């Protein structure tokens, strides 16, 4: 009996224990980082359930009903997730360690977010620290060399953005290769209005699987930009970032000086050119150093360039309470141009983003960004004139008393065809542009089924006005040629308005190990553009009169031909959907579909599907205990995208109004076109395979991809037979393929020292597969470019140089030279020798070959970052190559033989037997035998390596006490050194035809970051 009672008591006790266990315990504690700082907003979830909570401002949490044998999962963005077994503990404190590339990080993808680990596509993300390190007006410039497969071609003029290409060129028509920019959900064609300080992240969606959700705009890649926003439960954070810097022109091409120029002119064989040197001597006197040279030695570039300032200041505040998050900021950017005329860019932005949780199911967000920019554009002709101007002429010539407003020297006085002096144009021209941009967004998220089914509706309005004023004041040279006789004023007002309305329904659920996200949505977009311009002549101008008279009302007459009125209205309507499925985060399946309709082309609808798969190999049992591999994912995707950047087609024959003169009376008439264009979407199909891996305890990250993109129905301008001009048709097939790899090693050596080393490398192979039966497509005029099936797009096309004729005997024994002489041409020692490709003993157009493409075949970037105590250091090197550049400036000698040439030619020219076998003589370069066709002498390699950015920063030690701002000082050198062989200002010429005369400056800045 006694045993029975003991047994019963035991059972009752057991029962109590069991009941106890089933009711769960309360667990509480703090979550902090590894330096002891509390982490507010960290999430703690009971694994396998939806029971969870977040830590408060002080990092404290409390959970009830936690089953005793459960596990807690603690996570926080930027930190490695931890799992801790409860095991009856009621107080559990967790310390999380930073994980700079944590894979449960969430990445912004089209119309939603995804965990980075679950991606099947190729996406590169750049964070704000890396973006703001580059002092620039254009945020995309900061990506140069950082993203494999992204080609960024810089531009020097203030306020102008770079040319961007993602994975090669899929479109034949230039300018239609720009990617789509999505800023917080709104589409943009360029993001000139954003300040780098406005941006939180930039994600480049490179392959079809990532970008296809944007369907019709995605063929050239998509760049997603998130502006800064606040976080729940975040103490307000006030930041100030500012820098002051100076821009200095780099790699300015040295042109021939007077002595070299005079030698060239006398060797040229042209009496007129030699006479002009004598005329200069007569007019300006003899140089004391060399009596055969005039006493003038003008270095035009030196006179028109200056050091220019650049500065940026931004203040922002961000934070959040339980139900409201906010981020507000304003910034000011100013950049002077290095051309010595009114030439600068100023931009003032205000932004705000507020998100409110109205109920536990409904939240509303409103954001506005207002950008106000004024740009004074440089007059590019001034640079072009300065390049070609003769050094034997000064800027001012006191004897020209009739010149106005200053006694400008005129090269025609010396016998040259043009006036050549850049100063009149520079000093009497002003181009002002005021661009104001407002982007307003309102979005609403309603959880129809909490945490499972969400409806989002968002309305965006992007409104931009551009006011342009171009003022050309008159100037005279005083003789024969009054160059600009009328004062001209052009005013242009343009308004652009784009409204978008997106609706999406997202479903999110998990069934055991199956996780599913599904999305369907629609998007409606209305794009409108209106432009009005007018030109007036002879408004009041002169000394003492300024802007107040720059109005058409004050002009003497309005030029009827200068009045323009243009408008564009386009509509876009789309349906799209997405499914993202993963099994235990191990097997991934992803698909999207989009149907896009547009009013731009005659065939209106396009359909763009994509599918991607992934296998997270590291989750498999055989890799679970690997010491080396922490994460390994293999992925592959396929998709189709459309290109909406192609200009719309008219779809019908059109007429233009013209004026005829009969008996000195104007009679209006009409000229009608005889054919028209009817276009449909260009479609690009892309296949991508890749892997993502993290090795050696997350120290080494590798991301690698191989892709093949094919653009079908590429819009190709087809030459009209017999008559000038082209019509565009969807007839071509263009393929781009390549390999990309990004690797980074991140190591924390000790508490005081950590470093990261990384690099990226990518290749590009561009090939034209079909030209719809056309044997070739030729463009480019005299600097010929010919596309043939099997080659890349528009490579340069010309003769191959085989050296230089050194002696008369050499010419006598060369049948091709003899054939030309028999035809009446001259061939002399110093002329270029060409390869007779077809062996017919004649050098003519049939001997032209592919001289190379303007698209680089490889590009790379290397970066090194170090942190030692309070110091931080960062170095970035980039390079690219495999492309060629046509030196149009040298080739221009055909039209204007008496212009100046670069010093490299002057010094290296042929001037006697045996002097050189790679440069022609001064006479030779002017001789039609040597320049009647483009040749490899004028097409040079564009390879370069550049030290892109060096930054050194120092963070002040934290003070004791409550007021404890983070203050960091830094200095940066951007583009301080570039190594290249090309004889031009920059090896970055986006289309390979170098008429570029605006040098790209290096920027040196000193700045401070303050965070309170």
């Amino acid at each position: 009996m006694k045993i029975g009672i003991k047994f019963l008591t035991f059972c009752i006790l057991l029962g109590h224990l069991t009941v106890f266990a089933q009711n769960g315990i309360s667990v509480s504690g703090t979550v902090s980082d590894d330096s002891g700082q509390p982490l507010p907003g960290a999430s703690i979830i009971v694994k396998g359930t939806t029971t969870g909570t977040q830590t408060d401002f002080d990092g404290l949490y409390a959970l009830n009903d936690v089953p005793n044998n459960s596990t807690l999962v603690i996570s926080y963005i930027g930190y490695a997730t931890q799992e801790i077994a409860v095991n009856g503990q009621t107080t559990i404190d967790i310390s999380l360690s930073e994980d700079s590339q944590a894979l449960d990080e969430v990445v912004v993808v089209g119309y939603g977010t995804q965990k980075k680990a679950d991606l099947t596509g190729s996406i590169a993300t750049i964070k704000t620290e890396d973006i703001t390190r580059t002092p620039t007006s254009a945020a995309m410039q900061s990506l140069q060399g950082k993203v494999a497969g992204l080609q960024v071609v810089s531009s020097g003029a203030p306020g102008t953005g770079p040319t961007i290409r993602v994975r090669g060129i899929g479109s034949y028509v230039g300018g239609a290769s720009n990617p789509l920019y999505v800023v917080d959900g709104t589409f943009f064609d360029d993001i000139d209005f954003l300040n780098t300080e406005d941006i939180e992240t930039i994600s480049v969606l490179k392959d079809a699987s990532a970008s296809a959700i944007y369907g019709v705009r995605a063929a050239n890649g998509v760049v997603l930009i998130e502006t800064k926003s606040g976080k729940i439960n975040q103490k307000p954070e006030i930041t100030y970032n500012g820098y002051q810097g100076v821009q200095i022109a780099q790699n300015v091409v040295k042109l021939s000086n007077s002595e070299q120029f005079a030698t060239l002119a006398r060797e040229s064989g042209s009496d007129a050119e030699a006479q002009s040197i004598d005329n200069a001597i007569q007019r300006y006197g003899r140089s004391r150093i060399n009596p055969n040279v005039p006493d003038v030695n003008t270095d035009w570039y030196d006179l028109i360039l200056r050091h220019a300032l650049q500065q940026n200041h931004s203040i922002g505040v961000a934070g959040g309470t339980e139900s409201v998050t906010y981020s507000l900021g304003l910034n000011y950017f100013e950049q002077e141009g290095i051309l010595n005329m009114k030439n600068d860019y100023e931009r003032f932005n205000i932004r705000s983003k507020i998100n409110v949780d109205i109920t536990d199911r409904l939240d509303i967000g409103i954001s506005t960004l207002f950008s106000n920019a004024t740009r004074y554009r440089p007059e590019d002709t001034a640079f072009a004139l300065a390049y070609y101007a003769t050094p034997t002429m000064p800027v001012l010539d006191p004897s020209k008393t009739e010149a106005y407003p200053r006694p400008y020297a005129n090269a025609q006085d010396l016998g040259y065809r043009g006036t050549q002096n850049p100063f009149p144009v520079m000093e009497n021209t002003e181009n002002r542009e005021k661009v104001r941009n407002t982007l307003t967004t309102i979005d609403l998220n309603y959880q129809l089924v909490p945490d499972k089914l969400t409806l989002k509706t968002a309305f965006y309005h992007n409104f931009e006005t551009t006011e342009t004023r171009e003022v050309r004041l008159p100037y005279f040279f005083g003789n024969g040629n009054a160059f600009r006789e009328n004062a001209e004023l052009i005013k242009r007002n343009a308004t652009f308005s784009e409204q978008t309305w997106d609706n999406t329904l997202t479903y999110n659920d998990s069934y055991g190990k199956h996780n599913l996200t599904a999305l369907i949505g629609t998007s409606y977009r209305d794009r409108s553009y209106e432009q009005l311009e007018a030109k007036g002549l002879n408004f009041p101008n002169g000394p003492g009169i300024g802007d107040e008279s720059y109005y058409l009302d004050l002009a003497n007459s309005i030029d009827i031909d200068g009045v323009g009125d243009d408008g564009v209205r386009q509509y876009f309507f789309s349906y799209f959907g997405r499914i993202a499925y993963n099994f235990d985060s191990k097997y991934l399946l992803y698909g999207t579909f989009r149907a896009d309709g547009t009013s731009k082309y005659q065939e209106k609808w396009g359909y763009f599907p994509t599918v991607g798969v992934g296998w997270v190999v590291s989750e498999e049992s055989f890799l679970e205990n690997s010491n080396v591999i922490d994460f390994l994912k293999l992925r592959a995707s396929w998709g189709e995208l459309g290109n909406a950047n192609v200009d719309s087609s008219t779809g019908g024959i059109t007429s233009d109004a013209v004026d005829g003169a009969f008996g000195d009376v104007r009679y209006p008439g009409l000229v009608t076109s005889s054919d028209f264009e009817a276009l449909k979407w260009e479609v690009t199909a892309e296949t991508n395979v890749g892997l993502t891996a993290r090795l050696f305890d997350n120290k080494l990250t590798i991301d690698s991809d191989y892709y093949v993109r094919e653009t079908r129905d590429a819009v190709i301008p087809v030459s009209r037979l017999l008559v000038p001009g082209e019509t565009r048709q969807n007839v071509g097939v263009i393929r781009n393929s390549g390999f990309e790899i990004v690797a980074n090693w991140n190591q924390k050596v000790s508490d005081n020292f950590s470093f990261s080393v990384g690099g990226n490398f990518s290749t590009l192979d561009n090939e034209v597969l079909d030209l719809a039966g056309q044997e070739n497509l030729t463009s480019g005029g005299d600097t010929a470019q010919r596309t043939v099936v099997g080659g890349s797009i528009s490579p340069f096309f010309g003769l191959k140089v085989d050296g230089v004729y050194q002696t008369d005997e050499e010419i006598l024994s060369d049948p091709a030279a003899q054939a030309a002489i028999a035809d009446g041409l001259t061939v002399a020692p110093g002329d270029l020798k060409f390869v007779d490709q077809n062996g017919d003993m004649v050098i003519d157009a049939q001997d032209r070959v592919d001289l190379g493409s303007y698209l680089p075949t490889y590009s790379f970037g290397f970066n090194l970052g170090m942190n030692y105590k309070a110091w931080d250091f960062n170095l970035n090197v980039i390079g690219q190559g495999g492309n060629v550049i046509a030196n149009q400036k040298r080739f221009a000698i055909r039209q204007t033989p008496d212009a100046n040439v670069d010093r490299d030619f002057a010094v290296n020219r042929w001037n006697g037997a045996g002097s050189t076998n790679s440069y022609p003589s001064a006479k030779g370069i002017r001789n039609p035998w040597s320049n009647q066709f483009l040749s490899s002498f004028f097409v040079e390699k564009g390879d370069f390596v550049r030290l892109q950015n060096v930054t050194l920063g120092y963070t002040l030690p934290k003070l004791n006490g409550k007021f404890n701002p983070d203050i960091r000082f830094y200095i940066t050198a951007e583009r301080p050194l570039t190594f290249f062989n090309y004889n031009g200002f920059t090896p970055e010429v986006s289309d390979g035809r170098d008429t570029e005369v605006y040098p790209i400056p290096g920027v040196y800045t000193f700045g401070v970051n303050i965070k309170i």
Partner: protein
Amino acid sequence: MKYIKVNKLTVLLAFLGTVLIGCSDDLDQPELNNNFAGGTDFSQTDDMILSLIGVYQSVADRGWEQPLVVATRGDDVNAAGDQQGLKNQDRYVYDNSFFGSRTLWETYYGDIIGAHTGMEQIERYMEFADDEGIALGNQYIAEAKVLRAVLLFQLSQVYGSVFIPTSSNLNDFADVTSVPSKDEVMQHISNQMDEAIPFLLDLRPNERTDLPGGVTKYTALMIKAEANQELENYQAVADAAGEIIASGKFTLFPDYYELFKTPGKLSDENLFEFQYSDFGNGEGDRVSHLYAPYGPNSWNPEVDGSSNGWGFFEPSLKYIEFMLDRGETERLETSVFFSQKGIDSLIASTPYTTETLPSFVSPTTRDGDENTSTVRSIFSSGKHYLPTNQLIPGRTEYGSNKNNIVFRYSETLLMYAEALVQGANNSTMTADESVNLVRSRANMAPLSGVTLDQIVDEKYAELSMEWGKRFFDMVRLGRYDELSFDGRTFTEDKAFVTYHQDQIDEFPILGEIAN
């Protein structure tokens, strides 16, 4: 867990669906700022003339280099200046380096096709017109045919074998396998004129009130005569030219010097000219041609601020010597704009001296403009020169407001005389009479019993610097030794400018013609 009731969800989705579907017909909106010719109201017969004026405008709108390609070869003109390619062409060296040999072909054909498009548009108007409208339409179509012929004629003179378009449909040329010969082209032009003449107005161009200076029956006859002259069909030349002379409508402009300047615009001598105008305004839009290539590289104009030129086009020393030897006065003064350097070289290379040269041989024209060129062209073309005191005040471009005469009565008379001397029969006038009309206007003594050589010389004196007529005559008459002057060697195979490489790339058949 609350679940929203199913029917509310359906309502929500249905609402969204209907709102959004309604937006999709926006996709059919047309592109803005386009005058869709498909939407033209062809029942408005009065609008028919707009298409014709469009053809006139495009024919007269020529790039600066094109008349130079037509006119520079020949012993009347040298290419000067810095365009090596043009200089080569002048020396009968045909290479790809002068872009003009490409643009001449392309733009002339562009305008010829444009003439076809204009004619097709007019035909569409005629479908809705009454009898009066139809007659007017036929007249306009005939005018367009004549304008087209002007361009096709010059194309064939320059290149020889050229394509003959028959409509605006470019696809006709997609698989072309043959090219008509120059003779075939000229015959086609002659036939076209026969088609057009019945519908054209029987007026002098300057008698027209609807389009002053526009094409008339006599323009077409002149072109017919020109085409037949190239064919060496001299009877047809005599007949066509004779009909022009017999009409009695045309007379030679009394002042040879002013014929090529403002007073000569739309004179009674002009059978066809390209019209350019500033419309009497010193600023604002104008219809113009870039005459700068003909102007002296530096000068001292009478009216300050007037622009000089580029010095590309230079009357030859051979021509000037020829004119001096003949004792020409008016015609030499008008045709050549001398510079001091040019006069010095004249003295250095001929028996003439400062004393023996006529007084008008001076760097300063009778209107006070002084040619101070020392480089590029040492002589400039006087027929392309407009005195600065004739420029509309406010305009400074060289030759602004000046017309460019293509066909004039003086040439009709000389063509007629040559045709008779070559064996044709016509009773309108004798060869002597027609030549002497031309000579007496130029203050030259009359001739009796004119020979072919004398007529050829008369044409040299009268028509030099005008549209290469001298060069094409020398080729036609086989006088190659005349063209082999000053270091040049002319042979028969150099008569035509070779096709530019771009054209051969486009039409391989052209590559097989040795032209």
